[in-house]
């Protein structure tokens, strides 16, 4: 479905991504993990050609993204950027905007039907005529995801979608992403900082270190050694109900705790 083949990207002389190669299949949620500045956001942006790589190619079902028109990319790849502020428009208008790549001039009955389905899928029916500036962080995040889904993408890219959200909204948002990935049989690629949250909702993990892939695979790649190497901290990985749980040790403290 999605193949990233030897992508290299530089900002001037500074190489941000180095020879990234990986592939993902429909129905998979893939989390990109890594320290700040490791190239996570840059990788997302090269996948949907917001940034053009120096070398390598991104292929969707065998077609290089570089050869696709802007409109075709928009119909294939949905993108939810890092949190941005709302603007003075209704939830309905914000989600309808996702149909832009499909609309020639007039909004068709088909466009409205898809918007209706996605609003329902994301549980936004009650907020449909509310201004996006009035929404809570969790509701607004749902709107951004709904807009990307209205593009009917095969690949959904989400850049830190749970930043600034409380724990309930974080879990709700990731559950929605998990459900729509399964239901619509798409690939979802998420940049996350919370390893434990990613372990609950992802199928694969891509660990980036200094612009290169350090590890890529299932849960087995999340272990004490890889986390030490990628994040530079010591952790203990234990299991709760067969689910790995990453417990970080405090830096330079032997008791690993602030209070006893």
């Amino acid at each position, binding site marked *: 479905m999605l193949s990233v083949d030897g992508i290299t990207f530089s900002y001037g002389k500074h190489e941000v991504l180095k020879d990234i190669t990986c592939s993902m299949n429909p129905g998979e949620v893939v989390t990109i993990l890594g320290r700040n500045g490791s190239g996570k956001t840059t990788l997302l942006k090269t996948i949907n050609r*917001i940034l053009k790589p120096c070398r390598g190619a991104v292929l969707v079902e065998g077609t290089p993204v570089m050869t696709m028109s802007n409109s075709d*990319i928009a119909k294939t790849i949905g993108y939810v950027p890092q949190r*941005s502020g709302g*603007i003075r428009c209704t939830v309905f208008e914000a989600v309808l905007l996702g149909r*832009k790549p499909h609309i020639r001039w007039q909004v068709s009955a088909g466009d409205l039907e898809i918007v209706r389905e996605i609003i329902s899928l994301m549980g936004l029916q009650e907020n*449909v005529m509310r201004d996006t500036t009035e929404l809570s962080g969790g509701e607004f995040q749902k709107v951004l995801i709904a807009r990307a889904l209205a593009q009917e993408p095969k690949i959904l890219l989400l850049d830190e979608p749970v930043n600034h959200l409380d724990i309930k909204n974080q879990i709700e948002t990731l559950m929605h992403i998990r459900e729509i990935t399964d239901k619509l049989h798409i690939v979802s690629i998420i940049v996350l900082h919370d390893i434990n949250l990613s372990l609950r909702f992802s199928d694969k993990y891509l660990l980036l270190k200094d612009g290169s892939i350090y590890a890529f695979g299932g849960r087995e790649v999340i272990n004490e050694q890889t986390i030490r190497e990628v994040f530079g901290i010591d952790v203990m990985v234990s299991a709760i109900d067969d689910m790995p749980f990453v417990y970080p040790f405090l830096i330079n403290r032997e008791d690993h705790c602030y209070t006893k």
Partner: protein
Amino acid sequence: MTRKRSIYSEKAGNGQDEYKRFIGRKAVTTSVLGIFLIGLMLYAVNVGAFHLSVSAIAHNLFSQDDDNMRQVLWNIRLPRIVGAVLSGAGLGVAGVVMQNLLKNPLASPFTTGVSQGAAFGAAFAIIIFGAGATHLVGNERVTQFSPHVIAISAFAGSILTVSLILTVSAMRNASSESVILAGVAIGAFFTAATMLLQYFATDVQVATTLFWTFGDLGKAGWKENAAIGIIVFLSLAYFVANGWNYNAHLWGEEVAGSLGVKVRNLRIAGMLLSCMIVSVITAFLGIIGFIGLIAPHLMRFFVGEDYRFLIPCSALCGGVLLLSSDILGRTILAPAVIPVGIVTSFMGHQSFFIF
């Protein structure tokens, strides 16, 4: 808090009827504004020293008689009214597009320094190139007024301003506020440069430049209106056709790009067309402030941030505001006529307190 009714009511089929009603409100606003503008134009025909009945206006509009009434209508009132509507529409639409592209509600032809850049270009043409100079040929005083030279020079001045603003906005970490501040600084620079030119100019050149900067619809003739009209209509068609793209751009470059918008092309074309509109209007009529700032904000109350409607509504609202200002300028101290640029600046100041 009471929530507005969902557009997807229980009885709704696929939401199309509800969507039509939702969009219909914006379409009605646009239509009402259009009808109001036509009404205002008809009223404006009758404002002035000559008071005409509706039948007299209709008769003089279409008759072949070469009487004074017909001359007043065709050579004074109608060009002025058409000039006000076209220029107001142009300034309104340039303002709304600049606000979108610069992501700043304070952006307008006036606050981004584009008007001052155009004014400098015009002053340069008048003082250095001699456009608009008056010569004595024998005993005859001949005015060598070259509006096209002034227009081209004003356009060059505004493009220079926009290039500087776009350079600042392309700098890393440049906030939208810094872009506007850069516009204010560039505007001050061009104002100073214009004054410097005037300092070394002759009295006639200074008078010509000063008179030119007033922003006066009395300068609008059919040729000027044709030039303004062509640019305004072509630009308006481009802007309306890109309504969805401007909606997407409102959410940021990355979102717009991910929705298939060619952001760079949209920005360059939008800024160039906006500049062209402002420079041609400024070149022919002088500086007219605040219309480009006020008209879009006024229309956001009615149609929100939907650029499919906000762009044509800002154009119509700009026409209404400029024509109303001109009517006010012609009547408030009649028989003296206050240049419309002065009235719009007073109105703009007041509207900030109202809104």
